[in-house]
């Protein structure tokens, strides 16, 4: 596992056009940058997609990475989401051994983490867990001794936090009538 300070979360707004992801991935490959995780989906505006990626760099190359990304014609905007300034989520699906003798312990763990059992077999169960990356990490570590059969995590998705104080010039939110 790379040291956490090398991870940066980028939120990249791109034109929703064929081949844009190839351009981003190609740029990273060509310039020797590392993508740790990636999530892509259209936004509220169908002409745009948002790519959320966790990249793996020291801070000086990060600046270079952002500037090179910015040169891609189809990229509209790049934001680095600082850890305290964004809400980040991942989703994890895991199939874990749960023989009848230990099933109780496993289910207890799942309950503590607010996971959901989505599939049950004779000696294993599948759990879905959504949450901040740290929480998923902890859950995975605690499950490991029981025997993980298969695991899949999504790339991270994130949005900037809503400012806690309403700025003076921000109009009050009105209910839609």
């Amino acid at each position, binding site marked *: 596992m790379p040291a956490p300070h090398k991870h940066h979360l980028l939120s990249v707004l*791109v*034109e929703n056009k*064929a*081949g844009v992801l*190839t*351009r981003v991935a*190609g740029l990273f490959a*060509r310039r020797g940058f590392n993508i740790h995780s990636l999530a892509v989906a259209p936004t509220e505006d169908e002409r745009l997609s948002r790519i959320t990626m966790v990249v793996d760099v020291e801070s*000086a190359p990060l*600046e*270079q990475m952002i*500037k*090179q990304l*910015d*040169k*891609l*014609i*189809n*990229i*509209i905007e790049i934001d680095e989401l600082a850890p305290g300034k964004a809400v980040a989520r991942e989703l994890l699906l895991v199939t874990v051994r749960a023989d009848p003798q230990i099933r109780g312990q496993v289910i207890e763990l799942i309950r503590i983490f607010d996971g959901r059992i989505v599939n049950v077999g004779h000696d294993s169960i599948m759990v879905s867990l959504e949450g901040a990356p740290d929480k998923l990490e902890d859950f995975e570590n605690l499950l490991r001794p029981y025997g993980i059969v298969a695991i899949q995590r999504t790339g991270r998705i994130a949005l900037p936090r809503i400012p806690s104080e309403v700025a003076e010039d921000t109009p009050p939110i009105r209910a839609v009538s």
Partner: protein
Amino acid sequence: MNMKPGTKTDGGKALIKSLELEGVDVMFGLPGGAILPVYDPIIDSPIRHILVRHEQGAGHMAEGFAHATGRPGVAMVTSGPAATNIVTPLCDAYMDSVPMVVITGQVPYAAIGTDAFQECDTTGITLPVTKHNFLISDPQDIPRVIREAFHIATTGRPGPVLVDVPKDIVDPKNPRSAMEWYWPDSVDLPGYKPLTHGDPNEIKKAAQLIVESRRPVIYAGGGILKARAADALRELADLTGIHVVTTLMARSAFDDTHPLALGMPGMHGNYTAVTSMQESDLLIALGSRFDDRVTGKVPAFAPHAKIIHVDIDPAELGKVRKPDAGIAGDCRLVIEELIRALHDIGAPQSQPDRSEWKAQISGWQEKYPLTYQQSEPGELLKPQFVLEQLRDNTPDDTILVSGVGQHQMWASQYWNFKHPYTWVNSGGLGTMGFSVPAAIGAKVGRPDRMVWAVDGDGCFQMTAQELVTAASERIPIKVAILNNAYLGMVRQWQEMFYEERYSEVYLSPDLPDYKMWAESMGCVGFRVESPEEVLPTIEKANSIDDRPVVIDFRTDSREKVYPMVPAGLSNDDIVVDPAHGEGGR
């Protein structure tokens, strides 16, 4: 061809019409199956099409045209093998920031992905070597995409743009090609906003650094030429009295006969250019990118220098060396702004006394000029001698185009460039075979100028067939082959760093027979073996203006390019010509 908005037409005609409206008056290309429908409307178009013999030639011609004129070069080729043939020029143009638009044919849209005949993933292959590329799927998009392609190629940091066009959308026999003509009056690219003016605070900071510096050097790069900033550069140098080095890509951006000109720095730069950068306390990098061929070992490069870095591409600032003042913007505008900022703080009077530095520079110039030993009677020609003769017996505004290798370095070292845009070469990619087609493109763009290609025997053999194009199109370029019978630059490295173990570098002086080959291609051919024949033959070549000329100069293969900073070493380890004594310093 006059077309009103709304006129029903087809994608092929719309494509040619769009090129006309972009101001294209010449294009280089070669037709084939997928692009056939676009070749038909060329017959009725005022655009001059130059039929090349190999698609690589079309690409380099477009580049040569762009280098010489500042206008985007245009090439058009078919799909598959033609598209792959033009990948080298695309990469070359990408590395050297040359504005170029390449149009490639593609199999019909519905056939894409089926391994159809002559299908290749052209946008995929060219993605890393273009500034941007497009695959058009709807003929209605053609005028918009062509506008966008030219806009992207020519603004910001210029570069090549490729437009891939499936056959069905340009073929009038196919209903899928139907479109209604329009011409967009602007481009809408929300993710593309090239910078122009620099940050005023950084410019002030830069001006302050300049007036505090005792040993400044202007490190001018190819961006000066791209930004049409040669006049601004000269004004800055004259105002501040600061010496100027011009990188391989910036040759001709600053008059070499100006007293402040230091010539070329880098691996084969002259001693003074290299050493003044090493010893300087302030490098004013203008449109240059701290390329490894200039810096040598980066941590040892100009260790005491503060850095002002001006570039239109923000990603260049800090990529190699962190600037003390980093200004992203157009070189011409920023230099003009910098000149104003300097005036505001009392320059030039407010600058410190730099006489010691100037004395040091002229001392180096005196001690380590470029030198070579003249040939003894009966020996082969010295390549440097040939270049001096050519330099001194051609008009000042001659456009010099070079290949890649020893001859390129000598050409850059020995020429005295007096006017911008008189030097055309392949710097970043170092593409052998560049010079003949690029010279053709330059001559097409500047028919009023004399155009000389200085080529190596190895390079010449890679693209010489384009002389057939030149002869049949009556494009009277002149080619000086510095024929040392070797892949000379590689030979030099094998001599110096591989214990003279020459592996696969010998070519032969007379296989092929260059004179006969030139003649068979419709050129005038000469062979020159002795120093006395050099000048008269150059004069004969200069007098021929109705077809290309090729001179086979038989040069001494033992000659090496000096000075040299061996790869990976510090610029302080520069090796000068052994003729200077001191064991080659």
